[in-house]
């Protein structure tokens, strides 16, 4: 994990001004780099800004953008905004939860899939919308979700 420590140090160096204002941009930079915020990162950021770890953690958990477990190999994002919900996103969520046995913000034990439910990704004309590693699927049904997940699973096995 020496590598991870070095990468965190590098990010900290980009924020030389140790003011509270830097806290959110710092967390964002770590999230962008690793896809999640590790305990190690929280501790290092706290030390860098002279803030107690609990403060850093308390702030980070307040916001939706930050996650605290590594993402899966396939990161599934489901939109559950109003329009998507009306278009059946609730059923899709049930299906995904059943298929992957994980909930919002969780990662499967084998690390293959993670799930994130967003409140509006802004494509209300295409609802319901889901994306896997940035590839979008719009206007999908429960059946299609089943097939998409199956396809990704097969791809991973190959």
């Amino acid at each position, binding site marked *: 994990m020496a590598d991870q420590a070095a990468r965190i140090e590098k990010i900290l160096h980009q924020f030389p001004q140790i*003011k*509270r*204002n*830097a*806290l*959110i*941009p710092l*967390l*964002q930079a770590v999230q962008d780099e690793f896809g999640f915020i590790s305990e190690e990162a929280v501790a290092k950021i706290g030390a860098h800004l002279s803030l107690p770890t609990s403060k850093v953690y*308390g*702030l980070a958990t*307040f*916001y*939706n*953008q*930050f996650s605290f477990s590594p993402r899966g190999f396939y990161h599934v994002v489901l939109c559950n*905004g*109003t*329009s998507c*919900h*009306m278009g059946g996103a*609730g059923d899709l969520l049930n299906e995904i939860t059943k298929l992957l046995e994980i909930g919002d913000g969780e990662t499967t034990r084998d690390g293959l899939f993670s799930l994130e439910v*967003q*409140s*509006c*990704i*802004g*494509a*209300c*004309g*295409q*609802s319901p*919308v889901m*994306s896997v590693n940035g590839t*979008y699927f*719009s206007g999908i049904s429960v059946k299609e979700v089943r097939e998409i997940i199956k396809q990704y699973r097969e791809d991973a096995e190959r």
Partner: protein
Amino acid sequence: MRKDKALLLKLARSDRSGLNPDELKRSDELRKTEISRPLVMVNSSTSGIVAGSLLTWKAVESYAADRSIELDLTETGSIGLSSEDPVVSVQIPGRTRIFFSRITEGRVPSLLDDLFHQVVPDGNVIGQLLREGQEPWENVPALADLPFFALQNRIVMESCGIIDPFSLEEYMAGGGYGAFIRTIRSYTFSEVCELVTASGLRGRSGGGFSTGEKWKAAFRTPSDQKYLICNAEESDPGAFMDRTLMEGNPFQLLEGISIAAYAIGSNRAYIYIRSEYKDAIRRINNAIKELREIGLLGDNILDSGYNLQISLRKGPGAFVCGEETALIASLEGKRGMPSSKPPYPTTSGYLGRPTVVNNVETLSNLPGIIRKGPEWFRSIGTEESPGTKIFSISGRVALSGLVEVPMGTSFDTIINKIIGGAGRGRELKALHLGGPSGCMVPLDLMDLPVSYEALKEKGLIMGSGGVLVMDDRTCVVNTVRFFMYYLNKQSCGKCIPCREGTRRMAEILASITRKPADEEGSTTLERFKGVMQLESLAEVMKDTSLCGLGQNAPNPVVSTLKYFRHEYEEHIFERRCPSNTCTELRTWYIDVDLCTGCTVCAKKCPADAIIGTARHPYFIVQEKCIGCGICYDVCKFSAVYYK
């Protein structure tokens, strides 16, 4: 290629009569009224990308490469027809530009083949953009004549989907930045405040507060440093006008921010934007860079002595961060929790200094107001609500997208005439305005003119302009339950009435949309008591919550209890969901012809409600069924259905 600054400033400032023939030619090239090779524009805004426009883009590239055709391929924003994405427009030299709907990658070759042979392809045509000096296509409707566009008045969105959002030159050649240049050269700070007050512009984020008055309050507060913040959080799910404005015409917003910052005597502006808005962020970053390069941002802008820095800050996401005091806290590196007002941000805001927070759409209105004058602006809309408003329309509609209409236009015009109603032969049932903490509007009020004052009179709020359309298949109670659940999750937790009130409301609503586990004892009574509670709970939440989230949270409940009481009653008394949406209130049956008697459903039913003999059709004992739908999920023969 270095930009010709002197020329651009001239193009932006003067009317075209002041230009010499060379300058006119360059202006036409930049505005793409005269082009020398084919131009393909792909809508690469969020909605376009979700619909597949990145693949469309690649298909155009390889089409051109395979055939060694020289063409210009550029990005654009959305013209507002989100459900028609990916929208692609094509212009060939000498002719008008045509817009096409749903051009997925596979459709690219035949589309371009046809057009390059001067043939308009069958299908997918939206319309053509008529412009002087260009030959129109036969039998292609003009965009401006389509019902979708004809009844709108696009001022703020005028260039969205038409221009290249990455090209400062194109924006300036169309007169862009002329308003800002005039502002810093010809007006004092307070003159700009007066001018905007005179225009009657009111904040477009929902409150409808006078923009000029807000500026004056900040301008009058003495301080060594003042801030202007553009609120681009757009936390409301279902609202996408701010995003579309940023993606379609970022320079217009930046020009608006520059004018506003100048008016309050600030040289520091921030754009607080949701981190998920990646495509808008990319465009704004580019715009800031281009403006710096040409000297329209930075120190001593155009030798006026005025300095301005604009920076982008990504919001880490929380609904409540759209509220201005929460936004400021978040910008200061704290949790985004609202604080009580007064003091208002205009006296003590970011880092304790006078701060004006304005919405994206509000700011995007400014260049037009300066360019054409306050009287022009006042001539649009209503007496008390001048100008236009953009509504983002989604849900069960024929077309979903953005509509910009003069204030005072009726819902009927917006939904039935412009958008085409519920579509697919469905009947409209209701509109929901203003997101999760907005109001439900019954069809009786479709003739209501949409303006701050007319809505207020009916006890409704405009909100940010999100309109969710519901048809006969949508359940009012279920939708409100969804909103309440959402608001409960988003409450920052500071006020007990908001935090606990939304939770209690969500619980009560959930209990109505479910069958009681047993009919005996006190469960039925509890449900009743719950519903009786809703109204008084709403009062308390409204009166005692600190910020607009908690104050407005009861809106959906209150408005539906007022206008859709019968639906609540059907759910409670008859245990029936009239639109069949509430899964757990459905009545389930087994089709005797399809059932093979495999016993799977009976084994899985949690209520032991399914009985029968193996290899013979099973049936459901309705009195025992709790409506979970598990039998439906497990049946391999599709024998289970509901009514």
